[in-house]
């Protein structure tokens, strides 16, 4: 990487960070404490038992819900997508269920599942499943017709057809849905804990805010931001690996055009 590219990449983030650092350095504003102070507090607050007590349970619920939603959405979505009849019957109902803003389901599942881990995981599943499901249906519907005919000619059926044709063909669209589900899942992880919890990131954030522990609250905001960034980068890494063929295909098509 050239010096110019490196400068371009790091100049603005560094400038913004140092602006925040120096602008807030002597800040007497109660709500906007100096960044150096936040940084010190960050280490005190999170490099402690809080990691085990709050961060890991939150992440465990998030991953459990997210992966369950992917499995469920994929299974239902592919099943609905391959059948024209099923699509015709179910699409309006799915359209409605998807349009319900997931956070309103938090109180609903509190009724059913109480306020434990089960409720939070179910809330995350119920919100994340729709983007995956709808995109799987769309992806299966948009499969290449020529490839479909070829598969038929060669009598590729059943599991082989699913594994070698349907799933790979629909995967770019499915990944788009999984990416939407990722940000919805983070929202639901946080707010399900804001409502009713005894541990977790959202719970800690609310505790800090209610007790006016402002620097601590800022560290929570920053930690949540970092988690969002890390999940997004991890997702991008997985996606670019599994969909390498697709990105390569698009690149070559674009260059040819």
């Amino acid at each position, binding site marked *: 990487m050239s010096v110019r590219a490196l400068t371009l990449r790091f100049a603005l983030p560094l400038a913004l960070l140092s602006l925040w650092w120096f602008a807030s350095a002597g800040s007497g504003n109660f709500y906007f404490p100096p960044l150096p102070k936040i940084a010190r507090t960050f280490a005190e607050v999170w490099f402690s038992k809080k990691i085990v007590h709050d961060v890991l349970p939150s992440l465990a619920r998030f991953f459990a819900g997210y992966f369950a939603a992917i499995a469920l959405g994929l299974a239902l979505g592919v099943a609905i997508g391959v059948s024209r009849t099923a699509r015709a019957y179910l699409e309006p109902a799915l359209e409605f269920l998807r*349009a319900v803003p997931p956070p309103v389901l938090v109180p609903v599942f509190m009724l059913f599942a109480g306020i434990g881990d089960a409720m939070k995981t179910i809330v995350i599943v119920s919100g994340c499943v729709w983007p995956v499901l709808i995109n799987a249906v769309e992806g299966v519907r948009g499969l290449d017709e020529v490839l479909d005919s070829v598969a038929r000619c060669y009598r590729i059926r059943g599991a082989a057809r699913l594994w070698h044709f349907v799933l790979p063909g629909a995967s770019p669209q499915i990944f788009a849905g999984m990416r939407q589900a990722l940000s919805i899942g983070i929202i639901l992880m946080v707010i399900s804990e804001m409502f009713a919890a005894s541990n977790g990131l959202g719970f800690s954030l609310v505790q800090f805010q209610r007790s006016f522990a402002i620097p601590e609250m800022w560290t929570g*905001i920053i930690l949540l931001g970092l988690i969002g960034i890390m999940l997004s980068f991890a997702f991008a890494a997985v996606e670019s690996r599994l969909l390498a063929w697709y990105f390569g295909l698009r690149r070559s098509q674009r260059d040819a055009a």
Partner: protein
Amino acid sequence: MLRGACGLIALAILLEAAPRLGAVSPAYFPPFSTVAATLASELLQGTFWSALGATLECWSIGLAIAAAAGAAAGIAIGSSSLAREATRSTIEFLRPIPSVALIPLVILVFGTTLRSNLVLVVYASFWQVLIQVLYGTQDVDPVALETARCYRLRYRAQVVHLLWPTTLPYLMTGVRLAAAVALILTVTAEMTIGTPGLGKEIYIAKASGAVAAMYAYVIAAGIIGVGVNFLARWAERLVMPWHVSVRGEIPV
């Protein structure tokens, strides 16, 4: 169409039968007819409409700000390759920060006002628009761009005649995605911050044990979600009837 209606009716029957047959407790999950009747009676009351109005107000203002800011920033950044490279890492870092992380901050700074909600809604939906617009500015036909340069079109003319028409479809895709995100964040903000709106009504209904009313509001929120999706698609067709059919979507 007809079969779709059958599917919806089957869903309603399922929601009716499950509590009646005892598969779920009616105390937690009233039969669909009870919920529908509650929704109908809520529709006759002022509180429902003022909550709906508050939700739609926050949603529309937030979406409008996000769309305008996203389009302006996207075109400004996208029209210069230097600006694009310089901002890429910053955008990649700021975009995935979940806007719910800001909830405690806005509660302290703005309290339970519309402004608190707007911060969350705008932050979440701004990135959806910006990313699509940035993709759009990349998509300008190179031949058209060189032609424009040959004719010495100024920056303004290039933006108006070249960049804007190319970017518009992407902008509309961004707005459509942002419309759904903005609704989610509006309701979230109402529930967690306590500003007036459907989200707050749902929370109140839950807290006071008015289970049927809670479901009625959930269904109302779903209907608004459908309306929002529908509106966004309609706006797309209205703004650019020439483009919808030929455009692929960028998976973000």
